């Protein structure tokens, strides 16, 4: 008892000092995160992005400082670059849409219908893939969709074959990888909807579908936006899925990875593309007003 009192006493001066000096308090609070954010996070990003304006010496492939917009112009003028950007955008949107479509019914079931033990089991199953390494999951998908693999074995009796490596399998794989980031926020949001809203909707004569679209969906939009920021931006930056299950599919990440040693300025310029897409996405999301409610 006495020792506890002594301890409290000895910490008093600091806390009272901080109480009396709000500015110092604020600085002490922010010192660590700001050092991290500015010192490591922003600076490294800035150093990368500034390279986008530099030259490459065609003779030795060395990077030379300078100023040129050529690297950015090439994104729009080289047809292959432009089509890769658009393809990557569509893949990312496809992954996000697929995640939403899968997450909502699952979330409703888990939050409102399933027994507690089923709910817990499903929660474990959804997060289970997060326990495995990223590459392990990619190779698992590769083996599943290979020509003599599981999917074709499954579909063979009914006379059809699954998709070979290509864009559809890339979308499926990325959905598999990022699904937990969508499913968990959506599930949490649905859980917070009071049951009596469902009752009220039923009392007013609405069936299941209108209830989902007019009651559930508006209430969980912030959660969907939060989840989609993950699924969308992670898909935009990915390149290993394209490499392992994409066949000849090329994504923005493939171009960055191919150029990172050979032409760093172009790689740096290309890393702006996903950033631009995400900023555009957030602006659109903000217009819907759902960011304020996040």
């Amino acid at each position, binding site marked *: 008892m006495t020792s506890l009192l002594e301890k409290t006493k000895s910490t008093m001066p600091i806390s009272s000092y901080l109480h009396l000096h709000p500015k110092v308090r604020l600085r002490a609070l922010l010192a660590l995160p700001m050092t991290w954010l500015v010192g490591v996070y922003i600076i490294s990003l800035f150093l990368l992005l500034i390279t986008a304006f530099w030259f*490459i010496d*065609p*003779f*030795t*492939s*060395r990077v030379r400082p300078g100023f040129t917009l050529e690297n950015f112009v090439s994104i729009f003028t*080289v*047809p*292959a*670059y432009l*089509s*890769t950007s658009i393809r990557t955008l569509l893949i990312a949107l496809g992954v996000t849409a697929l995640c939403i479509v899968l997450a909502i019914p699952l979330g409703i079931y888990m939050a409102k219908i399933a027994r507690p033990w089923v709910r817990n089991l499903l929660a474990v199953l959804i997060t289970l893939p997060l326990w495995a390494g990223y590459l392990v999951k990619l190779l698992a998908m*590769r*083996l599943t969709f*290979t*020509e*003599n*693999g599981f999917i074709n074995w499954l579909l063979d009796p009914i006379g059809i074959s699954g998709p*070979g*490596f290509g864009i559809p399998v890339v979308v499926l794989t990325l959905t598999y990888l990022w699904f937990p980031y969508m499913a968990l926020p959506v599930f949490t949001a649905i859980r917070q909807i009071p049951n009596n809203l469902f009752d009220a909707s039923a009392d007013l004569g609405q069936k299941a579908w209108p209830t989902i679209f007019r009651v559930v969906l508006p209430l969980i939009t912030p959660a969907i936006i939060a989840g989609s920021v993950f699924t969308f931006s992670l898909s935009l930056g990915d390149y290993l899925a394209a*490499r*392992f299950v994409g*066949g*000849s599919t*090329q994504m923005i990440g*493939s*171009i960055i990875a*191919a*150029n990172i*040693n*050979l*032409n760093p300025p172009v790689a740096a310029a290309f890393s702006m593309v996903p950033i631009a897409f995400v900023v555009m996405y957030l602006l659109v999301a903000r217009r819907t007003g759902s960011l304020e409610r996040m």
Partner: protein
Amino acid sequence: MEGNKLKRRKLAFAALLASSSLFLASCATDSGELTLTVPDVPMQQELGEFEGELNIINWSGFVEPAWTDKFTADTGCKVNPRVAGTSDEMVTLMRTGEYDIVSASGDAALRLIVGGDVAPLNLELIPNFSEDIAEGMKGQIYDTVNGKAYGVPIGRGANLLQYNETVTGGAPESWNVVWETDTPYAGKITAYDAPIYIADAAVYLMYHNPELGIKNPYALDETQLAAAVDLLKQQNTIIGEYWADPVAQITSFVGGNVVVGTSWEVLRKFAGQDNIKTTLPIEGSTGWYDAWLLSSTAKNPNCAYAWMDYTSTASVNGAIAMNFGMAPANIAFCASSPEAQAHCDEFFAEDEEFFSRIWPWTTPIEECIDGRKDVKCTSFQDWTNAWLTVKG
């Protein structure tokens, strides 16, 4: 110790001086041999004391305790290997100046030589670099420039056409099964995923479109590069998969996703299936020839020289070749045991006729290495940019 440090500093200074300013002009040749413009990096004249460590950039499997332990015991040079995944990564790492030596393939070597990143070698300090080095690995353009040797050969391998015999019913005679749109294996073709693969298209064009005038698949002017890129774009419409990762390539062949495509002898071996075979088609092919290159800013040049000498002995060179799965440079190894002979036969180590049909990977540079002076050739930078447009 003090003297050692001083010497090191002197060497570094000399290298710095050389690489920063002096360039040899590309002059008219009197011997008729090809002359390239390279920075004048000084050559080490004699061996000094060992520095106590050696920093190596190497392919996976080139530096193993099985042979480094003895080297360290003999010389006191502690070996610090750093495995690189691609030639481009090797070049980037070499340019950091933190490494003494690199096991570069030809597509990295000439870039490093022309860029002044590596020093010419004093072969007198490498007595094991001897008669026993395979004829086809001596004095090649990718590591010997203007009569100066920059590389000590380690081993080589060809980029062969691998096929699934159950599907093809026999060895394809030509590379046309991977290039032409009327191929029976559309969608089941694999190709190597790197800009240097453009040379494979050039090898095919050399044989089938002689009017393009390609004399060396690594010396392409703009028209010739455009023709190769068109062929690659055509291939893109029938390709199943590009491979950069050897494991992915093996699983594609074994899993049935791929029926024909570029491969290495060692990958066929790892696939471990009797129906998966390799062949060298009539057009010939490209190949990778690896050599040790010494950094022009090496901090441990004496350990590096000792290493190059040590790994050139038949037994060590053979051990590296067997471990990686390639033909050893020192063919004296082949006769050392029945097991070694079997390895040499499997990888065509002594078959110069076989390797005479292989174009060793060489970095394309602006000066045409086929000797043309009237045109400018496309550089590796051009190839890199072109490669990304192929995949669209």
